[in-house]
């Protein structure tokens, strides 16, 4: 009772973190992804594009493109409109304009594994196989499983003009090109110089340097410093880091969705998921 009274007061004063109960405005834009899918990098790219005069770092990123989960209601209300915010939420009907970043789940799980060690959420000797099983069950995240998150957005919004799907792998391979798509989606005029500058300021080397100088910033503070936040920044790391049974487990569960997104399976024959039929129907839309 007392606890709820205090929480109630915090609510009335706007000091609570609304998170999923955020009051959404019609002109809000959301940069959404499952955790460890390149959201921070994309955020930096977009912020650099929108604020060319102010090089983005871990100290000012939360002002330029705030993270939904990190701000109180009052702070969120003070963000200049139109607000561009980062989020990891699975489908939320109120998010009207969404940039969704998807990444090969085999790389996501490797990245999350290292991130969990960094945050001391698992012991150093925790096996990656064990971690993959928890990951597949959706037990490593408050944002659903990887497929809950991805499929809930694709099933509802993939044909919508207010939804932009980005693959992290394409962003890596053709950063400028993909960023151009983002700019036109946001209605931002982007000259080749501006694009080049944004890309340059967000190179993996540059990002690592920024992490080194802003280690006290919100994103990375209170964590082990020997494991970096900005890690490999490449795709396909799973090929060397994931043991074969772990790959098989991931592909058996999510093979249909991975194939649909263009992630080639190592063992396609093993994919026997009973719900694939419906997911494929929704994803492929009415034409096929």
């Amino acid at each position, binding site marked *: *009772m007392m606890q*709820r*009274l205090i*929480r*109630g*007061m915090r*609510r*009335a004063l706007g000091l609570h973190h609304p998170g*999923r*109960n955020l009051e959404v405005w019609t002109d809000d834009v959301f940069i959404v992804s499952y955790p460890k899918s390149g959201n921070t990098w994309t955020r930096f790219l977009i912020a650099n594009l929108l604020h060319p005069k102010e090089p983005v770092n871990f100290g000012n990123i939360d002002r330029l493109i705030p993270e939904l989960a990190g701000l109180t209601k009052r702070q969120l209300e003070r963000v200049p409109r139109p607000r561009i915010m980062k989020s990891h939420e*699975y*489908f939320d*009907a109120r998010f009207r304009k969404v940039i969704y970043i998807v990444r090969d789940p085999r790389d996501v799980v490797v990245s999350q594994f290292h991130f969990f060690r960094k945050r001391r959420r698992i012991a150093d000797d925790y096996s990656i196989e064990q971690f993959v099983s928890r990951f597949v069950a*959706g037990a490593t995240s408050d*944002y*659903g*499983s990887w*497929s*809950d998150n991805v*499929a*809930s957005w*694709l*099933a*509802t919004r*993939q*044909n919508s003009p207010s*939804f*932009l*799907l980005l*693959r992290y792998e*394409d962003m890596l391979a053709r950063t400028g090109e993909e960023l151009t798509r983002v700019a036109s989606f946001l209605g931002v005029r982007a000259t080749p110089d501006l694009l080049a500058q944004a890309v340059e300021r967000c190179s993996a080397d540059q990002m690592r340097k920024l992490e080194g100088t802003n280690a006290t910033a919100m994103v990375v503070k209170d964590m082990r410093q020997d494991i970096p936040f900005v890690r490999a920044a490449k795709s396909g790391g799973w090929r060397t880091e994931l043991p074969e049974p772990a790959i098989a487990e991931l592909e058996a569960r999510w093979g249909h969705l991975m194939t*649909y*997104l*263009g992630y080639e399976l190592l063992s396609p024959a093993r994919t026997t*998921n*009973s*719900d*694939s*039929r*419906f*997911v494929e*129907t*929704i*994803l*492929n*839309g*009415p*034409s*096929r």
Partner: protein
Amino acid sequence: MIYGIRRVLKYALGRDIAGRTLAVRPDDTFIVSYPRSGNTWTRFLVANLLHPGEQVTFANIERLIPDAEAQSSRYMKRIPGPRLIKSHQYFDHRYPKVLYIVRDPRDVGASYYNFSRKYRHIEDNCPLERYIGDFVHGRLSSSPWGTWAENVGTWMAARNGRPTFLLVRYEDLIADTPAELEKVARFFGVDASPGRLRQAVENSSADQLRELEKREGGEWVTTKNKRSDIPFIGSAMAGKWKSVLPESAVVEIESAWGHIMTQLGYQLATRTAESERTQLADTAVIGKQVE
């Protein structure tokens, strides 16, 4: 300010509506559907099945299978586990076990129209065609549940095929109630004899529910203070849309959601709908990206 204090107190006392902030427990089971899809009927069927000794009414249904969107956090907290909860939410990954009821969106739209008039959410003379347009494009201000396709699509895409998810079509429930209810009973782990099933079906008939609504509708949380000249219990049939919806409204629904409807076994009435969508899908970003 007064409003603020009232809100603080309401929250402190746990009187705030649970809704999407409901504290979910690992042993909870949910009866989920889009509104106007047979959720209340299913609730009665299940409650009558689980409590054969107790006649289920609008007076005790909120205790037996509470409505998370109508009841307070405190009320929900006091229900002993394992709880059986009614909800209209689109996909929520915290729901451990879900019975999902789906209904032909053409019937849902037609039924929702009457419901919105009952709730005074729309003018009594709002044209049905305009209403269906708002229904399809997610412009119903009264509905925090997403569109029909968002609600059905998120649940199906994330959960269909899992042992913890059971999909029931309202139309199948109408066509062979005992057979579908038996599936539900098995899903809930209840051993139901044919006699018990039959009794639950009888006690939950549309006539029975209409009678109960007449007697208790004024007190039930869902229908209290709403227009009593439009009943909450609607036609209780499948295919009413054929005689109610104008053709343009049918086209609107089918061109937006035809692919999902087909997958669920709802036959489309228009072919134009199909070809329109083909063009749309061809220009879709994702279609180009992933070959």
